[in-house]
């Protein structure tokens, strides 16, 4: 990642600099928090799925930004999340926390074997192997329709929360109300957790692995184990994101795992700025809302996105955050 920026600020940042450093994330979370009061229901539901993408991208950036592994198959974990929600709600288990827990369990159990295979490779081989696995899942979901519903997929009914009694509300007010803030809390929690992980020895050692695998090994960094840890954490975040993204859609179907969706996830990451901890959050929000407007504006929105991605890759590799976070408080 020759274009990355300088490392995290000096160990003991003074109070002033810390305050300024927190301004950016605080603003971002404030906007998301206040969104249901300031925007119409359509946009609030868009933000709902943007939060799902943000969570998935936080995990993916642990792989791409921190460990330097480009996964072209991360959408398979979105699909695992969606189908878990589908299977559970269709057997009348609609408790949201339970769905998330089961999704995490399944995501982790799938991610460990796949991770063990994939982390032995880097660069192009890792990208192609992850792509092959996601297309394997796509074909399975598509072909074995007795189990997975094939192209029809599986219906996802609106989940229920233990703390809140949602029975009185219709799906729209659930999505723009209590469930929105539940997912918001989850986003804050998972962002804090990821911040803690990347600030811990794991974060530093993953970056060392990214920079120079051999040197890291000779300094006692267990490359295989930490790459697997990063892969499984990324998968778990991906599965959680998958559950959240699928709820407003109300359907888990094979197209979620198609390889072009994994490409879009990386696009969002680049748009936000993968060399920045907050890149995933900003990338998800900007991409979702920009796509919403672009799709209504022109039927050739893929062409426009393609051109934008070319511009980002060539001229703005560090994405939007590089412009916003001048002092690089949050760089990976």
């Amino acid at each position, binding site marked *: 990642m020759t274009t990355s920026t300088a490392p995290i600020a000096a160990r003991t940042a003074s109070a002033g600099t810390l305050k300024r450093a927190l301004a950016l994330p605080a603003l971002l979370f404030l906007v998301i928090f206040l969104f249901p009061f300031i*925007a119409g229901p359509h946009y609030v539901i868009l933000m709902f799925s943007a939060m799902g993408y943000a969570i998935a991208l936080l995990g993916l950036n642990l792989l791409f930004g921190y460990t330097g592994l480009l996964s072209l198959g991360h959408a398979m974990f979105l699909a695992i999340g969606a189908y878990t929600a589908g299977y559970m709600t269709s057997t009348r288990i609609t408790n949201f926390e339970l769905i998330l827990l089961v999704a995490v369990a399944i995501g982790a159990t799938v991610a460990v074997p796949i991770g063990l295979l994939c982390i032995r490779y880097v660069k192009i081989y890792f990208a192609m192997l992850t792509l092959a696995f996601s297309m394997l899942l796509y074909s399975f979901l598509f072909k074995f*329709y007795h189990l997975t519903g094939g*192209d*029809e997929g599986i219906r996802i009914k609106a989940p229920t929360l233990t703390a809140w009694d949602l029975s009185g509300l219709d799906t729209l007010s659930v999505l723009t109300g209590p469930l929105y803030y539940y997912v918001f809390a989850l986003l804050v929690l998972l962002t804090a957790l990821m911040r803690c992980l990347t600030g811990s020895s794991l974060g530093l050692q993953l970056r060392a692995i990214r920079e120079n695998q051999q040197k890291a090994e000779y300094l006692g960094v267990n490359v295989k184990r930490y790459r697997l840890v990063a892969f499984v954490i990324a998968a778990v975040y991906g599965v959680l994101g998958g559950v959240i993204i699928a709820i407003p859609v*109300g*359907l888990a179907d094979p197209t*979620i795992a198609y390889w072009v969706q994994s490409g879009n996830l990386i696009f969002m990451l680049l748009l936000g700025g993968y060399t920045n901890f907050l890149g995933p959050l900003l990338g998800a929000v900007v991409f979702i809302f920009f796509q919403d407007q672009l*799709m209504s504006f022109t039927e050739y929105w893929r062409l426009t996105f393609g051109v934008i991605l070319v511009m980002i890759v060539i001229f703005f590799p560090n994405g939007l955050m590089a412009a916003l976070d001048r002092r690089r408080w949050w760089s990976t």
Partner: protein
Amino acid sequence: MSAQSRRNFLKLSGGAFALGSFAGAPAFAQSPPVKIGVLAARSGVLASIGECALATVQWWADGVNKAGGILGRKVELVVEEEGNPKETAERSRKLALRDNVEMVTGLISTGSGLSVGPIAEELKTIWMSWDATTQKDVEETLPNPKYSFRSTDNEVEGLMASLLTVKHFKGKIKTVANLGTDYSYGRNMWETFMAMMKKYDMGVTPVADLWVKVGTTDLTTFVASLQQAKPDLIMSSLLFTDAFIFVKQAHAAGLTGASKLVMPAGGFQLNEMKKQYTPEGMILGHNSMYFEAPNASPLLKEFVAYYKGKTGLFPHFEADRAYSAVASWKAGVEKAAQQTSGKWPSKDEIIKAIEGISVESLGGTFSYRPDHIPDCNFYMGFTTHNNPYDIVTISPVETLNTRDYQKPAGADFFKWIQAKQFPNLS
């Protein structure tokens, strides 16, 4: 909690462009235009089908506006794209919540139908579907839909094709093969076909069961496998580009000489079923609209001329699906308005009016049953080369009405077939 705040913080003005054209439209009263949301596929396999249906809706809107609009209000189309289920769900919510359209019409793929159906009910927005119906769609997901009006059951085409097969090939065929399109529609067709073969104890044994992924462009291996199986008759539910590519490559390999072909939905690709490689005597279905229907209505003739002029192609049955959806809704609005003395009726009143309504659509009379499933004509027949075009046409044209060939509301399809006495075909 969900604030309906008017002050829209993001001021992301809906970029959706209005489509109704103005050529010679009469001056409209100051009443606001009636916005109709259109979800049309623009990319991937469904692109050509979506574009045909969209062109039909646009033609319908121009006609309506020229004749004074609906209850004096000009029709304005807000077009969005039918993509994968996630994108389609977002677009349908945008139409309902952001553009607050009066009604949403569209959708061809089953996946997007399954996600938009519940959203239409949730947002209390009338959805007049073009296609997007499968067995599963009907049973569990929307047991008694209020705002969604869906299309005919999938199996109708399979039923009719089976009856034609029984009528013309009973005793003449021993072995059959399936070349199914690999999604729910294809499975429904094959299950229906085999159930009908059993009902009329045709004594046929299936010798091949092949499934083609939608959009495949190289079917040489499928053709070769069918030649290996040597079936007397091939029932193929293919309906996308793979449909005519199969016929073309089958002809090249001599398969169409040996086996009879049944393509209940092949009419989707009527412009590509060239005489050059499409055999005569193939059962070809045109669903609810055949551009050369025997007693074609002036409406159909006018539309076919318009469409051929605009695109150089003949319209396929998605045009009728689109036309019947929007025309039924307009008729429903106007019928409901009689009770409300000309005032724009409420959604519930419109829904009640549409149930049981029947309109003159491109493919003939089209009416909605109380359970929101339509009844209409279906056209099927044996292909022939004697026509002035470079494509095959069908003759004689069997016109069958779904009243006799579509299971009643809530019935189990396979039990219904066993019991039903189908009228014998002409």
